[in-house]
């Protein structure tokens, strides 16, 4: 009797081990958080140095059209206009998303509503698989197929915004499609049945009922695809031409934040203005990925209401 009372009041070995495990697993979790915070701190401190240490004007940085951080203009100000890259990044992302969205929705509707059998057997696994294809492979395809085709059609070198956007379109298409499929599948079955029972044609049912109620999910899929496209570095870098100039047209060599960043960071000296300016581009990328994240959250919140 007494020994049981005693054992109840003492911390058992199991309890001690459990506490230890709790601390260890929490440390692992904390480590991830520390990584996230450090990424932001380090990139921010480097990226902001351009403005605080090198005294570059933020507005000039964002709106300047000439990117040559090693050189100065007539007023002795360094040429750190990032607008060409910002424009390039947004252009390729928007075009890729605009092209990918109808394809993704169409395919997803086909897979879930028109021909679920083929969808489940062929298209589904294929898209799942393509989601996992490394982006350099898409870049290689772009370089060996898309760029020559562009050259053939539009003349010039073939490198440019269109080539970049096409590569990104193919790259995000499987992801956006498979996310859209998941959303469509989650539309309750009785929505479909009651629409058809009311005499709607299949298309009316799809358009007025299913796509309407799946809109938040589809938007999330598209924004997710855009975030991936915006942050993609190598595939775009291989086909866009990497000329830090304001895009004159969609088929002339241009650049994105990521392409200039990957090209330049190895060729500049740590701590120099040229280097800091590149980190500022990285900071823009970081902030944009936050923005995409916030947009997705906002959509999810609205969709839940």
């Amino acid at each position: 009797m007494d020994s049981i009372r005693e054992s109840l009041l003492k911390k058992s070995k199991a309890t001690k081990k459990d506490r230890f495990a709790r601390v260890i697993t929490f440390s692992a979790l904390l480590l991830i958080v520390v990584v996230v915070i450090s990424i932001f701190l380090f990139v921010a401190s480097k990226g902001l140095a351009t403005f605080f240490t090198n005294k570059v004007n933020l507005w000039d940085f964002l709106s300047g059209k000439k990117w040559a951080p090693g050189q100065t203009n007539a007023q002795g100000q360094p040429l750190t206009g990032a607008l060409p890259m910002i424009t390039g990044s947004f252009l390729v992302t928007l075009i890729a998303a605009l092209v990918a969205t109808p394809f993704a929705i169409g395919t997803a509707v086909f897979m879930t509503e028109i021909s679920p059998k083929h969808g489940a057997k062929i298209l589904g696994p294929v898209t799942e698989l393509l989601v996992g294809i490394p982006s350099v492979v898409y870049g290689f395809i772009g370089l060996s197929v898309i760029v020559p085709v562009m050259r053939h059609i539009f003349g010039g070198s073939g490198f440019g915004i269109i080539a970049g956007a096409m590569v990104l379109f193919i790259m995000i298409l499987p992801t956006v499609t498979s996310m859209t499929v998941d959303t469509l599948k989650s539309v309750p079955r009785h929505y479909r049945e009651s629409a058809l029972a009311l005499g709607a044609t299949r298309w009316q049912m799809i358009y007025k009922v299913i796509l309407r109620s799946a809109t938040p999910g589809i938007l999330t899929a598209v924004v997710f695809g855009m975030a991936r496209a915006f942050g993609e570095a190598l595939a775009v870098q291989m086909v866009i031409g990497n000329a830090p100039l304001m895009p004159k047209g969609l088929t002339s060599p241009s650049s994105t934040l990521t392409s200039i960043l990957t090209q330049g960071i190895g060729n500049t000296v740590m701590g120099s203005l040229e280097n800091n300016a590149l980190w500022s581009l990285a900071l823009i990328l970081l902030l944009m990925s936050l923005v995409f994240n916030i947009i997705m959250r906002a959509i999810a919140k609205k969709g839940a209401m």
Partner: protein
Amino acid sequence: MAAGTQGSLNLTNEQPDRHIYHMDEDKHEIALSTKNLEVYYGDHLALQDADLSFERFKITSLIGASGSGKSTFLRSLNRMNDDVATVKGNIMYRGLDINSQDIDVYEMRKHIGMVFQRPNPFAKSISDNITFALKQHGEHDKAKLAEIVETSLKQAALWDEVKDDLKKSALSLSGGQQQRLVIARAIAMQPDILLLDEPASALDPISSAKIEDTLMELKKRFTIIIVTHNMQQASRVSDYTAFFHTGQVLEYDLTRKIFTRPKVQMTIDYVNGNFG
């Protein structure tokens, strides 16, 4: 809910709102008792004011409609609700308040075991299901473990059905067998008290009857508290019955009295099946 009282015969108008049987500690050996037990899920008060004593080597049934608080009460007794609810009040066991921060919960649960509504054997062999926790608690003597496997399976009336397949996966057993295995697993720990949360409700009538037989056998060695929806089961197996209604114990008495001469109108209605 009060509608039930309208149609039925009201012989006396002075029925009490509550009637709780208080055990005399000199006459009965009390294994477990609660004092002012209150359970909150967030802000929602799910159970209030529960003062019950449970006699040693007896079976006590907890009855009441869904959401009446009986399962909440049961799960609070060995602190299975700690993660999801706030439990206030005292639970006295061996002169200790086991609802206190100083108590080693894992140690306590070795003495107050629990069996759930749905059978939950581990994805291990039949014998491993029984020995696993014992090994974790430090018992490694193979002969002794084998003996425990046999006695506990016998006590749970499962031995004859599985004695040749002890190495078979527990998941290959039928639902009723699984539930008896789970009971065997619980009693292998040699607990003082066994809490059962509707142990037979997911089973067919035959399995259910076997479980009842098992319980009658087990009460020789264990104090048993069982939540049940089944009035017949409660009246057949238990010595005491507590009737829960909207988070309160309205009546607690000898089972015989609850089912023949309940004192509270609500109990009369519930036992007669006027609501539930």
